[in-house]
C-alpha cells in the first residue's frame, strides 16, 4: 500500500480524510492500488449517488476477495452508464442478462463456480430499487431462501430513474415522480404503500443484511467487507440520491444522503441471521423539513401554503424508524 504522510493537524475522526489515519484504518478507496472495478469515463450524471456507491462497494468487495469477484447487473442506470459496447467501465468479469433476474443469474454463476471447485471466486449481484424491490423481487427472495452464496446489492434511488423517474415500491410517500405527479388533493406518491426490502431480507434470516448511504462511505466499505466474510445469501441496501430524479443539486448528493440518515427517514443498520446487530447512531435528529426542502420532488409540500399535515406524517415515519432501529440509543447512553 502506498503511504501519504499526514500534513494536517486533526485526529479522532474519520470525517476529515484518510491521510490522518493509520494506514490500516484507511478506506479501500484511499489505496492507490484499489481495483477501480468501475473505472472512469462512464456516463453517469454529475453527482450520481449510484455511481459512487457502486464504486465503493465493488472496490471493497474486490479487496475482500483478492479480486476474485464476478458481478451481475440488472437492467438500469448502472448497467447503461457503464457501457454500451465496445466500451465498458467494468474491470472485473461482468454480466447483464435482463431486468428482473440478476439474483437468479448470480445463483447460476455461484452454482457453476461451486461445481468447478472454484470456491475462492465470489459473486455479487446488483440492481436499482426497481430491479430489486419490484421486478426482480421473486428471484431475489428465491436466492435468499435457498441461501445461495451471493451478495446482492441494491442501489436505492427511490424510483425508476433510467426510464424517466417513475414510481417504484421504494418511492417514499408524497414524492413526485412521473407517475405520481404533484397534482390533485393528495399530490405525489400515496402514503401506506411501498416496501422496505432490508426488513424483508431479514425475515428470510439470511446470514447478513445491511443498509448504508453514500454519506458514510467508510461504513459502506466496512459492511461490504463484513458481508464477504459470510457464505450464503447476503443483502446490502444502499441509499443513493439521484440529482436528476430528485431535483437536487449535483453537489448535494452526500448532504442529502446524510440528511436521510440523520432525520431517521433511512435507517442505517446491520443484521445477522435475521437479528439486528447494530444501528448507525444519530447524534442529533434533524427535522425532516431539512431533508425535504432541497429536493424538487417534494417542492409541492412547501408552496405558498405548506402542507404541514403531510410533513408531519413524514416526520412520524422518521420517528418510527428511530424507535424501531434504536438509532438514538447510543446518544442517550452517552
Amino acid at each position, binding site marked *: 500500500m502506498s503511504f501519504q504522510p499526514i500534513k494536517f493537524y486533526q485526529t479522532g475522526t474519520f470525517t476529515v480524510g484518510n491521510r490522518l489515519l493509520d494506514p490500516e484504518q484507511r478506506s479501500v478507496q484511499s489505496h492507490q492500488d484499489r481495483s477501480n472495478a468501475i473505472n472512469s469515463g462512464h456516463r453517469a450524471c454529475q453527482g450520481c449517488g449510484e455511481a459512487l456507491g457502486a464504486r465503493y462497494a465493488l472496490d471493497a468487495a474486490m479487496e475482500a476477495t483478492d479480486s476474485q469477484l464476478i458481478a451481475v447487473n440488472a437492467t438500469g442506470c448502472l448497467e447503461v452508464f457503464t457501457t454500451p459496447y465496445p466500451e465498458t467501465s467494468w474491470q*472485473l*468479469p461482468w454480466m447483464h*442478462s435482463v431486468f428482473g433476474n440478476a439474483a437468479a443469474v448470480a*445463483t447460476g*454463476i455461484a*452454482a*457453476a463456480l*461451486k461445481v468447478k471447485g472454484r470456491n475462492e471466486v465470489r459473486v455479487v449481484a446488483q440492481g436499482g430499487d426497481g430491479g430489486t424491490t419490484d421486478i426482480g423481487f421473486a*428471484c431475489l427472495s428465491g436466492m435468499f431462501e435457498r441461501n445461495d452464496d451471493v451478495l446482492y446489492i441494491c442501489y436505492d434511488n427511490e424510483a425508476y430513474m433510467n426510464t424517466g423517474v417513475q414510481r417504484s415500491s421504494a418511492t417514499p410517500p408524497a414524492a413526485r415522480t412521473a407517475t405520481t405527479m404533484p397534482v390533485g388533493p393528495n399530490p405525489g406518491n400515496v402514503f401506506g404503500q411501498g416496501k422496505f426490502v432490508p426488513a424483508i431480507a431479514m425475515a428470510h434470516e439470511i446470514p447478513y443484511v445491511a443498509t448504508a448511504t453514500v454519506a458514510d462511505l467508510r461504513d459502506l466499505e466496512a459492511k461490504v467487507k463484513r458481508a464477504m466474510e459470510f457464505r450464503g445469501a447476503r443483502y446490502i441496501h444502499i441509499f443513493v440520491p439521484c440529482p436528476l430524479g430528485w431535483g437536487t443539486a449535483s453537489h448535494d448528493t452526500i448532504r442529502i444522503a446524510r440528511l436521510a440518515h440523520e432525520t431517521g427517514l433511512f435507517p442505517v443498520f446491520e443484521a445477522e441471521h435475521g437479528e439486528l446487530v447494530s444501528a448507525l447512531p444519530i447524534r442529533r435528529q434533524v427535522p425532516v423539513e431539512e431533508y425535504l426542502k432541497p429536493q424538487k420532488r417534494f417542492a409541492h409540500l412547501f408552496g405558498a401554503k405548506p402542507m404541514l399535515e403531510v410533513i408531519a406524517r413524514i416526520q412520524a415515519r422518521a420517528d418510527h424508524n428511530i424507535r424501531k432501529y434504536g438509532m438514538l440509543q447510543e446518544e442517550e447512553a452517552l
Partner: protein
Amino acid sequence: MLKQIEGSRAVAEAIALCRPEVICAYPISPQTHIVEALGAMVKGGELAKCEFINVESEFAAMSVAIGASATGARAYTATASQGLLYMVEAVYNASGLGLPIVMTVANRAIGAPINIWNDHSDSLSQRDSGWMQLFAETNQEALDLHIQAFKLAEELSLPVMVCMDGFILTHAYERVDMPTQQQVDDYLPPYEPRQVLDPREPVSIGAMVGPEAFMEVRYLAHAKQMQALERIPQLAAEFKQIFGRDTGGLTHTYRAEDAETMVVAMGSVLGTIKDTVDEMRDDGHRIGVLGITSFRPFPLVQVRAALQHAKRVVVLEKSLAVGIGGILSTDVRMALSGIQLHGYTVVAGLGGRAITRKSLHKLFREAEQDALQPLTFLDLDWGVVNKQLARERDMRRSGPAAENMLRDIGTVASRIS
C-alpha cells in the same frame, strides 16, 4: 442396454450421461418426472459434480441456467407450456447471448383455458426466439436427441430445445436402448465455452448494442442456425457410428416414393400417421410421410426436395396460429414457393385431443380427392361451436364461453374421440 422405462426416466438418464454441471428445476406437468429423476440422481451421488437447484419459477430456472452457462458450466433445465411462456424473456436472452443451454420442452397446450395435455403451441410460440428446436418422434429419439443437442448447442454456442410430446412420450413406458457412459463420452467432448466469466480474464457479457451493430449481431444468430442445417445431419451420422442408430437429422421421409399425397408432421403423431399410411398403401394409395425433426433451423431445401414431386401436401400440425391457421404449414409453404400443388393445413390434437387412425383415414382420403378445406380442424365439434356463436349473437352477457361449451357437451371429462 435395453430398458423398459418411462420416457421421462429415459431422458433423465440420458441427460445424466451427458455430465451436466448445473440443473435447475421448477415443477410443471408434464416435464416434472425428468427433473425429479435427475434430482434423485444428484442427491444420491449417482450424478456427481452437478448442482441441482430448486428454483422459484421458470423465469429463474432459465436465468440460473444463463448464469451457469456463462460461467462455463453445462446447464440443463426442462419445462412446458405456461412455464415456457413465463421464462420467455430469459429464453430470448439465452440465445441472444449465445449460451448453449439444453432444455427439454414436454410439449403441452397453452391456456386459457388451462389444459395440461399435449400439443405443440408452447415451443412453436418460441420459433423466433433463436433457439434450435428438435422434435422427437419416440422415446428412443428423445433420449438420443438430448445427447446430440448438447454437442450441437456447444459447437455453435446456441441453445437447443428438445421437444417431446407431453404425456404421449414423457409418461409412456417404452423400450429404449440406453447408451453407456463410454459411448456418450466418446461422442460428447467436455464443454469449451467461447466466452466465460472468470476473474483471470475479465469480460463484459450482455452490454447494450446500438443500431450501429445490432443487425450484424442478430444476423450472426441466423448464420449459426444456417450452419446448424449442415451440422445436424453430420451429427446424426457421427451418432450412428458410435451408437449404431439412425436418429436425428433434419427430416425423415416414409414411403414417400412415387407419393401423390404427402403428409407432413412433427413428433409422436408421426407414428399414427405412418400406421395409417401403411394401411392405405396396402390398399394402393400413393401416400407418403415427411417427418420434420429440426423445426428450427427449418430445413427449407430438404422439405422442398421431399415434397416437390407430390400433387398435394397435407400439413398436420398440433398448433394453431390464431388469425391465419397454421404455423408449421406456413413454413412448409415457404419451402414450396413457386411450386403449383394443393396445400392443406390440418390443425389437429389441440389440448390433447386424440388423433385417431379412423380420423386420419377419412382426412387423407378427402385430401386425395382434393375435397379438404385449405384450413381444416380435425374432429372439430361444429355443433358446439355454432351453438356458442349463436349464443353470443343473441345475448350480450353470454358468460364464460368455455363453461357454456362444456355444458353443451355435457361433462365428459375423459372423452377422447
